[in-house]
């Protein structure tokens, strides 16, 4: 099964890497630095909630969170077993990495589905 889905995993790795490269810096700069440090006023709850009402925003957030998680899973898996020479733990590492990404994706989907 692993061999059959490997091309798909590489595709998600590169799609996630591209999403993270193009969109994470601006989101991270605003949310992680500019808002908490007071350089810019953070958006109000009402305005973000209004944005979330739009289906395009929900699709955007789903892609924005899920694909980079798969990017991490794939890259980190190879970092672990090449970098730390853990080749004997291949299967366990793969299950943990992709499992975490699937879990994060499921949580994102659930939250997006249950927005009041």
């Amino acid at each position, binding site marked *: 099964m692993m061999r059959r889905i490997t091309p798909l995993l590489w595709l998600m790795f590169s799609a996630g890497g591209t999403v993270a490269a193009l*969109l994470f810096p601006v989101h991270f700069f605003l949310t992680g*630095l500019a808002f908490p440090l007071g350089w810019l006023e953070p958006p109000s709850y009402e305005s973000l909630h209004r944005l979330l009402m739009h289906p395009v925003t929900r699709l955007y957030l789903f892609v924005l969170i899920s694909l980079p998680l798969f990017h991490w899973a794939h890259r980190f898996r190879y970092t672990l077993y090449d970098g730390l020479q853990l080749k004997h733990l291949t299967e366990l590492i793969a299950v943990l990495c992709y499992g975490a990404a699937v879990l994060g994706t499921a949580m994102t989907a659930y939250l997006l589905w249950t927005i009041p």
Partner: protein
Amino acid sequence: MSTEPHYTLYHPRWYRRRVSVWWWLQNRSYTAFVLRELTSVFVAFFALVYLWQLRALVHGPEAYAQFLARLKTPRVLALDTVAFLFVLFHAITWFNLTPKAMVVRLRGKRAPDWVIVGLNYAAWLVLSGVVAFVLLRGR
């Protein structure tokens, strides 16, 4: 490996130099390689921050206010600063690698690397502007 290797006749002797766990600090390009590989951890970290924000938004205004307050604590700010630099490093190395991973041909000729890299940076600039505009519009 055991300290007393047991050699049998006709069996080749393995020669393996012990490699330190810190091998990647001896050479700048090795260091850059390992740091680049580690960016994925910080990419996942930010995905989780966004998931956390989404959860706060689903739970209501108090949860969102609490989320914003948590981001202001010094420990989270320090972590966010480091993680932001790694995410930036990911973006730059990712854009610079694209022409090597994807060869684009125009009228039978290979498009020069700088064109593809330049288009990446242009898309980055435009998308960042759009995201900032949408997020900052409703304050």
